[in-house]
């Protein structure tokens, strides 16, 4: 199983509250970054807000409750989450995110102790009726982590309140969004969540060799 969905991780009234929060905080959204903190509009075009305000606790609790089932169903190595990372993203007209994976390998900068993203969860939010087209989540199904066959994929259509979860090292992309009104409130909103685990100290005897990608 490559991914799991929760048809209503957030209820309609909850998504409406969070969309209201996004509208109230529109001025705080900033250009989304790639690979940590650089902006590259050729790779990722969207705006994000890392502060979910009072909604963070709700999202975090729903995600944490889902994790044991996800580890089992996605057949991941079992682990104990150490924290949840979240961000609220607006994909407006013309926005996209090219093929990527969410995991940073190698040295992890920033927080100490370093943590790895192990599960990615995207929960979609939009006004009804859905005011945009496109924006599907495309997950590549090939086994090759770095170079999956580009003709093997599954497209998942976003629906308000629905969440999709997958291993953070699954290659995926966000298809271009078309939003005819070009209004912020009609964008494809999503809460991106990552289930983190504190990175273990390097084991004795491992000899890191160059990755095959």
């Amino acid at each position, binding site marked *: 199983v*490559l991914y799991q969905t929760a048809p209503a991780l957030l209820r309609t009234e909850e998504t409406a509250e969070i969309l209201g929060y996004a509208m109230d905080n529109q001025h705080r959204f900033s250009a989304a970054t790639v690979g940590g903190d650089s902006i590259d509009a050729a790779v990722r075009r969207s705006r994000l807000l890392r502060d979910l305000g009072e909604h963070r606790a709700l999202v975090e609790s729903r995600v944490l409750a889902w994790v044991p089932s996800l580890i089992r169903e*996605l*057949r*991941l*190595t079992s*682990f104990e989450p150490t924290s949840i990372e979240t961000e609220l993203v607006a994909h407006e007209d013309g926005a996209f995110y090219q093929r990527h994976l969410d*995991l940073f*390998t*190698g040295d992890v900068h920033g927080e100490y102790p370093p943590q*790895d993203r*192990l599960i990615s969860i995207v929960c979609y939010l939009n006004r009804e009726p859905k005011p945009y087209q496109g924006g599907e989540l495309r997950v590549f*199904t090939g*086994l*090759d*982590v*770095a170079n999956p066959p580009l003709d093997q994929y599954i497209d998942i259509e976003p629906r308000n309140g629905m969440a999709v979860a997958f*291993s953070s*090292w*699954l290659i995926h992309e966000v298809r271009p969004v078309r939003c005819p009104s070009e209004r912020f409130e009609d964008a494809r909103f999503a809460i991106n969540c990552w289930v983190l685990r504190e*990175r*273990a*100290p*390097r*084991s*004795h*005897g*491992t*000899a*890191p*060799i*160059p*990755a*095959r*990608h």
Partner: protein
Amino acid sequence: MSVITIPAEVMSRQVGDETVILHLTSGNYFSLDPVGTRFWQLLTERKSLTAAREVLLAEYEVSAQQLSSDLDRLLAELAAGGLVNIA
């Protein structure tokens, strides 16, 4: 007798009857076919190499000599990538 352990920084995910293993620190990864996947599953259950070999001998039509040779080669590749520790 060799003891095989999986380092904490190694994660795996199963796709169908195959498995991809990733070393989080180095970014090194490895794909396993269905038989390798079964062997990996036994390792994650903390089976010893001897016990895992016995299970595989019972489950697959393979000679003990061939299986030992295949497992030795697989373990050497995994160890070279830091994906298992052999003590």
